[in-house]
Every structure is written in structure tokens, then in C-alpha cells.
């Protein structure tokens, strides 16, 4: 019954999306006539109702997973009655159908929220936006209902579920996909805004202010999602790597790069009414990257082009949606771009100028990641296989990242519209002076490659540079969004330092030990004191107890495990991490060798945690900016209302 209720709600929500599209388009066409007024009054409530219905459907699916209802095909294929409750619930979106349902749920909720709260946009633009939103949504509804029904029943209930991939049974990964989806969907909202503004030809500061919170929100979620995903890969895969340039990772990085560019250009549009066409273009690109990411991850094309060709239905569906939305939006853009004037002009040396340079460089980085991700798929389709990995992405990306970071350090010091380079000469020289001791210091610690060295230098310059916009200001009166920028930029410096340090100064130790043996890694002395079996709810494990001593300090106990899950059967390494302020000791328990000794892997990774602290700071900065912007909008509206009231009273 629960499954049927969920499916019914999903169909109803799809019907409402169709209604939302139809009423929206008709209302736009009939303009200010009476029918137009009635129709446009319908659109907002329909959007809200659609959001509620599809949320209901999603809750029903969660309920099915909570009860482990094995008569539902999806539950039987992805869950197991022995699983802890939190992972049963997370299992709802830990699979193809459920994650697509999550996508459309978040998207419809966003539409409902726009219907409920958006009051800045002119009514026609809002109607066009909600229609575009419904149009995008319909594609996903069709995808779910026709090719990925999450509520399908089995003819015979299964005796037991197949289980969830043990690698995914982890709290970090339980929260990772929803976080990314919030980001993807936020970008779909930005896309709908862009389409709406193109349809009504009203691209200006009001439109940018309405779109900005969504871009910021999406960007915060993408930032945190990528940060969490990277940390998960780091501790769960058991080899201490934190970024593999895996296509799945790139699928989340590309929307982030596009969103970062969009975030900055939409700010220029909001405060300076410049970069109109460029902002619209970036919203289309950002959404395309979300769709492309979904396509890459969901179609199975990454495992192999041939796996995709064997079962192409789902992949073809998403590819068709991608072509429809992006192609449609680009066509609309091409038709309308002449009517979107460029907006305000500005000099080369200005805040806008620096932001344009950064935007172009970010787009180029996006281009490289896109090329490196798609190229192997392309060549495989043509019959030969190549691998593109860190040795390609790191140096080629750095060519664009380094100048971008340099501009990022000085750009915020420039004034809007027009400035002179002489005015920022002193701080610029100061920044360069900061870079030199950092490079000398890191050379003294040990040289290993030009990229980490430049990374440390740039990180030092950027860390100082990020705070320079605050100089000479009363800190209590600095607006929240400026704090947001400062903290985000500082976060980039922190993360960059962590990456460079990890790349340059990690120490690895592979040791074969008996209980009682001792080994060294970097400044650590590690004793393997004991090895014994352990049992969990759905796994058994070999656990090694180690006492780790940093220099002459007191020993600390760590206990990495090598786990064997039985539903489905899979081995995972549960690495043990010992975090100090200056880095992490990373310990992994391997298997027993021929001579009965245990294979133990140890790493000392100086300042590796800064990578994720940086990610969190970047997200936190985004949050401050979002709060600051929403506050500002609220105040502005409040004053406008007061003025209108006074005018009416007089």
C-alpha cells in the first residue's frame, strides 16, 4: 500500500508539473487580460502543491526502506534487514532510482519555495521561471515513471535483501549524495531564472538579486559535498589519496567550477548591472555541467562505453534530456542575446576587469577538466583506450589555476568601474614579499616538485591577500557578505596549503609486523601490540591495536580494521586516523603474509587536514555571504514598503 501511495503521489506531482507549465505559458501569452490574471494566480499554488506531493512520495520510499519491505524491487536489490537503521534510510538515495527521486524532490521543493517566497521578480519573469522549472522537472518525472520506477513491486517478495555496497555504509557517504544534489538542483533553479529572464528579456540587477541566493546556496552545497566526498575517499579507500581525478569526482567538480564563475558574475550583474549576457551564458553552462554530471554517474558510461551500450535506455534518456534542455537554452540564448544589451561598461583595471579575468580562467579550467574527463570515453567509443589522470590534470590545470589565484589575491583590492594599478602597488608588493619566505621555508623542509613549492608560496600570498580588503575598515561595520568573501578566499589558501603540503611531505611506510614489533614513520614510532578478530552487525574484522608515539610524547592507541562484509561479500579497510594540529597519522591493517606477519600501512601526512578545513571555510564564507545578502534584500524591501506606505498616507 505504501508503495502504491508513493507512486500515485509521484504521478500526481508529474501531472501538476504539466499543469504548472501549461498555466505558466498560457498566462504569459494572455498577458494582463482577466484570464491571464486567473491563470497566473494558479501557478504559485500549483508549484507549492507539486513540491509537497513529490516530498510525500519520497517519504513513502524512505518508509519502505525503513521497514525493509522486500516486496519492493528497489528495496530488495539495495537493502538488507541486518543493516543499521541510519544506513537503511540512507539506502533510499544510495541507488539509481532513489537518487533520481531525491533529485526531483529537491527540485520541486525549490520550485515550491520560489512560488512561496519570491517577490522581487516582475510577475512575467517569475511565471516564465516557474514554467521553465516545471519543464525541466517533467523530463525527470518522465525518466522516473517510464524507465526508473522506484516503487515497482516484485511478483514474489524476496526472502532477503541484497544489501548495500559496504563502501557506501558510512555516515559521510550517506550524506554526500544529497548534499551534491542540493547543489545540482540549486543550479537548475538558476538555469530556470536565466530562461525566465531570457523569455521576458529582463536581465538586470533585480533578476541577479533574485537568482543570487540560489547560486550561492547551490555553491555552498557543492563545496561541502565535494569536501565531504574527498574526505570519504581519503579515509575509506585506505591508501591515503584524497583526490583521484576520477570521472565521478570530476562530475562534481565541473558544476562547482561553473558555479564559482557564475557566483562572481551574478554579483557583478547585481551590483553593477554589467556582464548580462555572460551571466546568462554561465547559468546555462552551470546547469549543463550538473546534467552532464548526472549523466556520467547515472548512465554507467564510466565503467565502460560498452556497458553503456548494452543497457543504453537510462543513459540515452538522460542524454536526451541533456540535449533538450541545454540545446533549447542555447537556442533561446542565441535568439535573444542581441536583445540583451551588454550592460554597464568598465575599464580594464577595475574590480569588474579582475572578475572577468578570473571568470575566463575558471571557464578554461572547466574546459580542461571537461576535456580530460570526456576524452577517454570518446576514444574508447572510437576503439582505443587511453587513461587521463593526475599527471595530466595537475600540471595542465596549474597553468590556469596559478594566474587565477594570483588575480584572486589582488582583485578584491581594486575599485569598481575604474582604478589605477599604482593605487594597489603597495599591497601587491607586500603580497609578493609574503610569497618569498614561504618558498624559502618550504625549500628548507624539503623540495619535492615545482607544483607543491609554488602552491605553498601562492597559499601564503593568498592567505594574507584575502584579509587585505578589511584593512583600514571598522571591522564591526564590515558587511557580512564581505566577511564571506574574505573567509572563502582564505579557505582557498588554507586548502591549497594542505594540498601542497600533502603532496610534498607525506611519508609512507609499508611494514610487515608481528604483534610486539615496532616501526617508524616520519616523527612517529608505532608499536603493533595486538591483533584480534572483531564482529559487527553485518561484518567481521581483523583489528590491529597500535600504540603511536609522536616524538617523545605519550603513546596514543589506534585500532585500524580490515573488515569483511557478508551482504554482499566485500572487504573494506577501516583506516585509523590520528589527528594532530600539524597533520594526520594514517594507519591501515592489511592481511597476513606468507610468513604470518601482518601487513601494516602507515602514512604521516603533514597538514593534510587543512584541505578539508579549507573546504569548510570556503563553505562557511558562502553561508555568511548568503545570510548577508538575504538580510540586505529584506532590509531593502522593508524600506521600500515603508516609503510606499508613507507615500500612500500622504
Amino acid at each position, binding site marked *: 500500500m505504501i508503495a502504491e501511495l508513493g507512486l500515485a503521489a509521484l504521478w500526481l506531482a508529474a501531472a501538476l508539473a504539466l499543469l504548472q507549465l501549461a498555466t505558466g505559458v498560457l498566462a504569459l501569452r494572455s498577458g494582463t487580460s482577466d484570464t491571464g490574471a486567473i491563470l497566473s494566480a494558479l501557478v504559485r499554488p500549483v508549484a507549492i502543491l507539486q513540491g509537497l506531493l513529490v516530498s510525500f512520495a519520497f517519504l513513502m520510499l524512505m518508509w519502505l526502506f525503513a521497514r525493509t519491505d522486500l516486496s519492493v524491487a528497489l528495496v530488495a536489490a539495495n537493502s538488507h534487514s541486518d543493516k543499521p537503521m541510519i544506513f537503511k534510510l540512507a539506502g533510499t538515495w544510495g541507488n539509481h532510482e532513489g537518487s533520481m527521486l531525491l533529485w526531483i524532490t529537491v527540485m520541486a521543493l525549490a520550485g515550491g519555495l520560489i512560488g512561496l517566497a519570491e517577490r522581487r521578480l516582475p510577475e512575467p519573469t517569475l511565471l516564465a521561471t516557474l514554467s521553465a522549472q516545471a519543464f525541466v522537472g517533467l523530463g525527470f518525472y518522465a525518466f522516473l515513471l517510464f524507465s526508473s520506477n522506484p516503487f515497482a513491486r516484485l511478483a514474489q517478495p524476496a526472502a532477503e535483501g541484497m544489501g548495500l555496497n559496504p563502501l557506501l555504509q558510512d555516515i559521510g557517504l550517506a550524506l554526500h549524495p544529497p548534499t551534491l544534489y542540493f547543489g545540482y538542483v540549486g543550479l537548475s533553479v538558476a538555469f530556470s531564472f536565466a530562461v525566465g529572464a531570457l523569455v521576458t528579456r529582463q536581465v538586470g540587477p533585480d533578476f541577479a538579486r533574485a537568482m543570487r541566493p540560489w547560486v550561492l546556496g547551490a555553491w555552498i552545497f557543492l563545496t561541502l559535498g565535494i569536501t565531504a566526498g574527498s574526505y570519504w575517499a581519503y579515509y575509506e579507500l585506505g591508501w591515503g589519496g584524497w583526490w583521484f581525478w576520477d570521472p565521478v569526482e570530476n562530475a562534481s567538480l565541473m558544476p562547482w567550477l561553473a558555479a564559482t564563475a557564475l557566483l562572481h558574475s551574478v554579483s557583478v550583474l547585481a551590483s553593477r548591472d554589467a556582464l548580462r549576457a555572460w551571466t546568462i551564458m554561465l547559468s546555462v553552462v552551470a546547469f549543463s555541467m550538473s546534467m552532464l554530471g548526472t549523466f556520467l554517474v547515472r548512465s554507467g558510461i564510466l565503467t565502460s562505453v560498452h556497458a553503456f551500450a548494452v543497457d543504453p535506455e537510462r543513459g540515452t534518456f538522460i542524454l536526451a534530456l541533456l540535449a533538450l534542455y541545454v540545446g533549447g537554452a542555447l537556442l533561446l540564448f542565441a535568439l535573444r542575446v542581441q536583445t540583451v544589451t551588454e550592460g554597464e561598461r568598465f575599464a580594464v583595471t577595475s574590480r569588474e576587469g579582475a572578475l572577468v579575468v578570473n571568470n575566463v*580562467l575558471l571557464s*578554461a579550467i572547466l574546459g580542461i577538466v571537461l576535456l580530460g574527463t570526456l576524452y577517454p570515453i570518446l576514444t574508447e567509443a572510437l576503439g582505443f583506450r587511453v587513461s587521463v589522470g593526475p599527471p595530466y590534470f595537475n600540471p595542465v590545470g596549474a597553468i590556469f589555476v596559478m594566474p587565477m589565484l594570483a588575480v584572486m589575491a589582488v582583485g578584491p583590492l581594486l575599485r569598481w568601474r575604474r582604478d589605477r594599478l599604482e593605487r594597489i602597488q603597495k599591497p601587491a608588493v607586500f603580497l609578493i614579499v609574503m610569497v618569498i619566505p614561504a618558498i624559502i621555508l618550504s625549500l628548507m623542509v624539503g623540495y619535492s616538485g615545482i607544483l607543491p613549492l609554488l602552491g605553498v608560496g601562492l597559499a601564503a600570498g593568498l592567505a594574507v591577500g584575502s584579509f587585505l580588503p578589511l584593512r583600514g575598515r571598522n571591522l564591526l561595520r564590515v558587511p557580512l557578505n564581505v566577511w564571506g568573501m574574505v573567509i572563502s578566499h582564505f579557505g582557498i589558501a588554507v586548502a591549497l596549503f594542505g594540498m601542497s603540503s600533502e603532496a610534498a611531505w607525506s611519508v*609512507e611506510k609499508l611494514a610487515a609486523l608481528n604483534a610486539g614489533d615496532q616501526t617508524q614513520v616520519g616523527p612517529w614510532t608505532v608499536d603493533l601490540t595486538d591483533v584480534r578478530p572483531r564482529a559487527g552487525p553485518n561484518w567481521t574484522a581483523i583489528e590491529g591495536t597500535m600504540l603511536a608515539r609522536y616524538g617523545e610524547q605519550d603513546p596514543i592507541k589506534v585500532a585500524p580494521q580490515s573488515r569483511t562484509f557478508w551482504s554482499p561479500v566485500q572487504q573494506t579497510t577501516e583506516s585509523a586516523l590520528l589527528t594532530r594540529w600539524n597533520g594526520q597519522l594514517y594507519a591501515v591493517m592489511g592481511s597476513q603474509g606468507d610468513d604470518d606477519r601482518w601487513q601494516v600501512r602507515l602514512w604521516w601526512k603533514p597538514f593534510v587536514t587543512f584541505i578539508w578545513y579549507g573546504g569548510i571555510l570556503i563553505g562557511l564564507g558562502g553561508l555568511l555571504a548568503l545570510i548577508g545578502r538575504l538580510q540586505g534584500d529584506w532590509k531593502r524591501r522593508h524600506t521600500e514598503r515603508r516609503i510606499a506606505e508613507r507615500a500612500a498616507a500622504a
Partner: protein
Amino acid sequence: MIARFSVVGALLSLMVASLTLPIAAAATPHPPLAYRQLDNPSREAAAQELMETLRCLTCQSQSIADSDAPMAASMRHEVRTRIAAGEDPEAIRNWLIQRYGDYVSYSPQVGAATWPLYAGPIVLLLIAGLLIRHRLGGKR
């Protein structure tokens, strides 16, 4: 001179051994050097650097330096053995490429199959330059 000869000898014997023992089919669970570092730190560093740029053919997007897959383990053993014998890392890479194709190497060499990977960024650089000029130049 003697050292050089012994290296060449070791190399030759290795070549012969490796031709008769295909690595992918290695049957023992853990060849000795899969989970053991070389004693010579600079050799180990060279091996590590090479292993990080070789693809584990049975994994998804992992190098042989960070995978528990049996094939990655036997390839690590192979790389360490050859580095220990003094073989040049790039020679080992080429040998592996001959054996498994370009797919095994993460750092694609510029060639018929891979030139667009390097032409692409150059084109992007040009486009970026033109865009910035177009956006910023010509206007005051």
C-alpha cells in the same frame, strides 16, 4: 664497469623472466614487493613516483599505488623489482605500455591518440586570451 654489466645482466634475466611469467596471471596472493618498500630510499621514491602514474587495470580510476586489487599488487611487485635492478622508470612505463596499451599509463604521451589532450589547453589558452581582450580591450 662491473656494476654496469651486472645491471644489464639483471635486466636481461628480468626481461626473460617477465616474458615467461605474465604478471596479470600471478597466482600467489601477495608477491613479496607488493607490500614492502625498497630499502634504498631514492629507488623507492622513484618506484613510488612511477606507480602513482600507472593505472590499476582492474579498478576504477585508481593507480596501482593505491589499490588492494591483486593485479595492482603484482604490478607493484614488478615495478619495484625492476627499479631495484636499476631499470629506468620510463623504460618500465614503455614496457608496460607495449604490453597493455596506452591505457595503463596515466600520463599520456603526446602521440596520434592523445594530441587533442594537449592541443585542447593551448586552444583554450588562446580563446581565454581572446575573450579577455574582447571583454576588456576596445572599451575604455
